């Protein structure tokens, strides 16, 4: 098999276009040569200072700084695994992941005097190192990353991605979007998730220029960056578009002439937003993906060329095969509804500490999403088996909120669902149904309690009394019956 790791591709750009700018972060600018030298120096330093070696795991706080990027690729060069995590992660969840993965190094987190913790600042002191002529690059079947997702039971699940998975995924995306080394991408997405992290890999392996921006929160700064660096593309989640509209109207369209592509994903987007974007960016490739951490960007749809199919999630990405299966794993006919199953080199090899049988039909990964495929290959998503709630691009399990309500008062029975945000901003918000109970007079106390126990986006925006929670005979909550 002709396999080339992400790291080898970056190294190649360092040789063929050493002076090309790879990375910009505020006043720091790195060429491809400097990028690879820094990755190499970081690798040597990790080996020397922390005795990192093949097979080890490293927790990486997803802070959008250049040292995150150097460290990410350096850890891969060692043959170790990267576990990128949101810096705002709850302590409880962090503890759980530390216990599950037993990392040798924890970068970018403070964790109760844990000797394995180290701050990014210290990496600024690393001296440069000479890059040798011969490098042992990662092999295709080695685990590269473990990405933790919100499991349906509220327990984080570790998705194992090999070097082949992440390299295939970057290739598929670049080939669909049509990226090349002339691209200058503004990265304002969070990098603890598959979407933002994927953008880093896509741009740096195609030889383009990546401009880091903390977030889109400061629109003025974002527009300044668009102008200053002549940005040609960027990625956003549907909630970002609503934020951009609320905060700056149609100002983004001033850049429509220079924007070659916009990648969208991670949640569904209202039809009116899709039409508006198509209208404001007539010459931009607006590519919306559907995917999961387990199978990143498995389908794509482009707003102009697929204008008649905006209600679909598009077609299978290049080198990806999609099959609709029934509950026993038999393939459904065209147009028939079933579970969307995905096969491709980008698909995870499985979960940490879990047996794969439940997640695969042969080589096809079971997404848990329901849909059908038409005779042209367009896929329509009609529902989900799983019940993850997506608040402005941040995902949570209803179980997590319900267990905190139970912690507040064990006599309370509740069920949470995602509802359309009444303010039209977050996409979805959490709604909690609570069984009427004399012990609770109003929702204020529970709301105050949840505010201290959960990240704010997880706190229900709407509460409602209910007489009885609908359940199946086996006792499972029937959330689809709640509105």
């Amino acid at each position, binding site marked *: 098999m002709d396999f080339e790791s992400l790291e080898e591709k970056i190294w190649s750009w360092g040789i063929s276009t050493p002076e090309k700018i790879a990375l910009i972060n505020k006043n720091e600018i790195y060429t491809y040569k400097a990028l690879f030298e820094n990755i190499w120096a970081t690798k040597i330093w990790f080996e020397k200072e922390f005795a990192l070696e093949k097979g080890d795991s490293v927790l990486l706080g997803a802070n959008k700084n250049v040292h995150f990027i150097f460290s990410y690729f350096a850890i891969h060069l060692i043959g170790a695994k990267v576990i990128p995590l949101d810096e705002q992660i709850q302590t409880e969840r962090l503890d759980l992941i530390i216990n599950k993965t037993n990392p040798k190094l924890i970068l970018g987190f403070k964790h109760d005097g844990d000797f394995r913790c180290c701050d990014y600042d210290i990496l600024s002191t690393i001296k440069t190192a000479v890059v040798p002529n011969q490098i042992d690059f990662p092999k295709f079947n080695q685990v590269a990353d473990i990405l933790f997702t919100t499991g349906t039971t509220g327990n984080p699940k570790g998705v194992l991605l090999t070097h082949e998975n992440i390299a295939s995924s970057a290739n598929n995306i670049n080939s669909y979007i049509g990226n090349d080394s002339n691209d200058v991408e503004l990265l304002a997405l969070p990098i603890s998730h598959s979407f933002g992290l994927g953008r880093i890999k896509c741009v740096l392996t195609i030889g383009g220029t990546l401009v880091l921006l903390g977030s889109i929160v400061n629109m*003025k700064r974002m527009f300044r960056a668009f102008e200053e660096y002549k940005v040609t593309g960027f990625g956003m989640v549907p*909630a970002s578009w609503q*934020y951009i509209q609320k905060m*700056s109207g149609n100002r983004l369209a001033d850049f429509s002439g220079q924007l070659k592509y916009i990648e969208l994903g991670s949640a569904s987007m209202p039809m009116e937003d899709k039409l508006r974007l198509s209208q404001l960016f007539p010459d931009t490739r607006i590519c919306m993906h559907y995917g999961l951490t387990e199978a990143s960007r498995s389908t794509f749809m482009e707003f102009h060329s697929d204008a008649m199919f905006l209600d679909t999630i598009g077609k299978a990405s290049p080198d990806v095969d999609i099959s609709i299966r029934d509950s026993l794993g038999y393939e459904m006919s065209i147009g028939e509804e079933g579970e969307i199953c995905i096969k491709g080199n980008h698909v995870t090899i499985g979960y940490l500490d879990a047996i794969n049988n439940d997640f695969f039909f042969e080589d096809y990964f079971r997404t848990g999403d329901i849909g059908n495929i038409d005779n042209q290959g367009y896929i329509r998503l009609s529902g989900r088996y799983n019940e993850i709630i997506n608040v402005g691009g941040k995902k949570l399990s209803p179980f997590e909120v319900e267990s905190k309500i139970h912690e507040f008062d064990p006599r309370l029975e509740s069920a949470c669902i995602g509802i359309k945000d009444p303010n039209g*901003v977050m996409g979805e918000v959490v709604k909690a149904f609570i069984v009427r109970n004399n012990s609770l007079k109003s929702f204020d106390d529970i709301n105050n309690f949840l505010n201290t126990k959960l990240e*704010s986006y997880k706190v229900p925006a709407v509460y409602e009394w209910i007489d009885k929670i609908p359940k199946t005979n086996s006792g499972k909550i029937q959330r689809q019956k709640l509105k």
Partner: protein
Amino acid sequence: MSTANKVKEIIAEAIEVEVSKINEDTAIGDFPKWDSMGQLVIISSLEKQFDIKIDPEVIMDLEDVGDMIEAVEERIS
């Protein structure tokens, strides 16, 4: 309470920090919770609590606490 202090209180509450940590130079993104969701919560709280409407063209210029105080004062006077 002065408008400035009220604005600072609203911001502090929205991004879950102590009001003493908020001054006029505190800017978007200075605290982890002052992300896009935080900014939306701040703008909608300001609009609600002062019963005002801030247009997108103006919102874009609100880069720090001082800008927000100014925008509110202009609209309530």
